[in-house]
């Protein structure tokens, strides 16, 4: 038995410690991992828990992220709880196996500390890795601060392992701004956390020698399509389980989560739609804009995949101008948020002015003043009832202004 870790009612943890503590409390059976900035401290903290007797399971320092995710797949198929952590290049190296994990319906938890993708090499936060995972068939949950990173990591196990879901889950936090910034966290005690998540429920375990099972088959044109469609169906339907788990968590802690995060959206004329730590800056910018008489709001996703299409449209139904902020180089089109939010609004017969800002790549600071500038541009568009600026701009880019459409 692992030793009980004495926790204070209020701890001061950075995002990495928060994630590591949640992994420890989840009593992970096999954690296979490989270090990469900025998620390395998750693995280091976990190793120290193990060295001090607070972890009962196995911790395997493998020789690459490809093997880390492969190890998680094998352990999960063997019928035990498996998890890992990574960022950026490590995430990219895992991609092949991310699809294998979801296709094999294995409820692995991956804590992702978001970081830019090379080239050029960059260790700082942006959302390139998170976006790279968006078609991989995983549930993707977004946190903005260490408390949420902790909460969502605990919930990730309960969501993914639910028998109606049985899909792997990523929990995202921003590199450095969340992962390395110590903030207040109210943790659960070990027993409470264990009780909340519940025992791992093995399905088709390879370790049951009386019931041999074949994992990871070949399907060609005769079955592949049905398999992938079922998988998509269950991912789309996972909203009900996610909601159930969010509700149970609220009953336990009082902390409330929803598919879509909204700040002062009830009467908002203009809104910034962003993910991650930028949400916290945008809230301050919105407050300051309201002092100037502009009805500004902030909207974000708690659940990036599956994408809460209807809730997004509902939250934005009375807004006159929306700026989607994408923190990933879009590679020849609009940012993913822009495309997805536009589609949701269009499908619901809404046609606000939609602007797309690419920002914060490679950790470029995004200040409150910059966000206020965005609100001002939105305000002009809202008043004019049409786009007064190019549809795609780059926020905080040095040199000549770059814009498209």
């Amino acid at each position, binding site marked *: 038995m692992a030793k009980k870790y004495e926790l204070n009612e209020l701890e001061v943890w950075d995002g990495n410690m928060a994630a590591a503590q949640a992994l420890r409390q989840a009593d992970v059976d096999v954690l*296979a991992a490989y270090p990469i900035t900025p998620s390395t401290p998750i693995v280091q903290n976990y190793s120290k828990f193990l060295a001090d007797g607070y972890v009962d399971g196995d911790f395997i320092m493998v020789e690459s992220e490809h093997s880390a995710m492969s*190890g998680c797949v094998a352990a999960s198929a063997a019928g035990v709880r498996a998890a890992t952590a990574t960022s950026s290049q490590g995430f990219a190296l895992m991609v092949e196996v991310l699809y294998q994990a979801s296709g094999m319906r294995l409820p692995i938890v991956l804590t992702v500390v978001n970081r830019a993708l090379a080239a050029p090499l960059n260790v700082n936060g942006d959302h390139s890795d998170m976006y790279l995972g968006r078609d991989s068939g995983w549930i993707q949950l977004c946190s903005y601060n260490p408390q949420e990173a902790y909460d969502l990591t605990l919930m990730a196990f309960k969501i993914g392992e639910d028998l109606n879901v049985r899909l792997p889950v990523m929990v995202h936090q921003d590199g450095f701004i969340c992962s390395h910034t110590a903030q207040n966290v109210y943790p659960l005690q070990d027993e409470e956390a264990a009780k909340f998540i519940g025992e791992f429920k093995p399905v088709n375990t*390879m370790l*049951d020698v009386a019931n041999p099972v074949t994992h990871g088959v*070949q399907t060609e044109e005769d079955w592949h399509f049905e398999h992938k469609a079922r998988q998509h169906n269950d991912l789309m339907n996972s909203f009900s389980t996610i909601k159930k788990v969010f509700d149970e968590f609220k009953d336990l802690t009082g902390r409330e989560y929803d598919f879509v995060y909204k700040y002062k959206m009830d009467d908002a004329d203009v809104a910034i739609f962003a993910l991650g730590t930028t949400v916290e800056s945008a809230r301050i910018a919105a407050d300051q804009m309201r002092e100037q008489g502009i009805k500004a709001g902030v909207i974000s996703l708690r659940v990036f995949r599956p994408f809460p299409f209807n809730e997004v449209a509902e939250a934005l139904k009375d807004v006159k101008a929306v700026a989607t902020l994408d923190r990933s180089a879009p590679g020849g089109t609009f940012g993913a948020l822009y495309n997805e939010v536009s589609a949701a609004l269009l499908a619901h017969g809404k046609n606000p002015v939609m602007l797309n800002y690419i920002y914060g790549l490679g950790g470029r600071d995004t200040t409150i003043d910059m966000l206020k500038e965005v609100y001002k541009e939105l305000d002009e568009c809202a008043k004019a009832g049409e786009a007064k600026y190019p549809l795609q701009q780059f926020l905080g880019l040095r040199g000549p202004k770059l814009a498209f459409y």
Partner: protein
Amino acid sequence: MVKKIKNLKEFSLSNDRFEGANLMCPGCSHNIIVREVLNATNDPVIVATATGCLEVCTAVYPKTSWDVSWIHIGFENAAVAAATVSAAYEVMKRKGKLPPATQKMVDEGREPKIVAFAGDGGTYDIGFQSLSGAFERGHNFMYVCLDNEVYANTGGQRSSSTPIGASTTTSPAGKVSYGEKMMKKSMVEIMADHGAPYVAQVSPSKWKDLVKKVQKGFEVNGPVYINAQSACTTEWKHAPEDTIEVSDLGVDSCVWPLYEIINERDEHGIIYNTKLNITYRPKNKIPVEEYLAAQPRFRHLFKPENRHIIDLWQKAVDTKWEYLQKREEAGV
């Protein structure tokens, strides 16, 4: 628990946990090797398989040829898959949470044997990193390389196991080429140098030798590597009914020497003693030419302008055979 095997008839009929009626070519050695490995024990077996002929021919939904728990993830990760299943097993055993049927087996002294099967492509090339990592970490599992010296599943491209002079689809013999330019990697020695407690080379045609080595491997604690000669009727281009004969030619010419390397070591991987044993010594060591002549993949070597490659072959085989004998004599 070591299984007692009396004769081939009994062996071939016992404990059928791998269905022979699968999609592999008639005369495929992969089939024979897998059956021999699984039949070497009556204990439960859990298998991981890399992408390749064995995998695509034995687990095509909704059918499976496997009556043991089996997993395939990808081409390059069979080693870490088996290693982590082994780790998961150890954790559950320690926590007392094994499924009841498995726990019962363990109580009877019949622990599950965890085996990875991969082709030479999945072993010598793309899976090498995962294999090396899993062996360094010392997990308790057996890794069997089904070495047909080519990427058979994808149509016969060269691998780093393809031997000199072989014509493959990416090292074809042609007007100005005799085919593959490099001799194959010494995988057995490479794996022994990882400090693995037991490493051996086998051929399915010498089934008793194979079974003995697999049984030895199952008794050892730690990672075990078995390099299995796997004559491939499709890519070596011999007739399906000649598989065993071609395999024997490989063994009797010492192109495919049968030997084992034992590293006596502790749980930290510190090696106190290393020993190499040759387990089969041909009565008449036949010329390499006879082995090459039996396989059309080497046919062009018999043209006058390519004959020197056959001489090179013979020299390479003699040198390796001498090296093995010297190591055996010296007890290192």
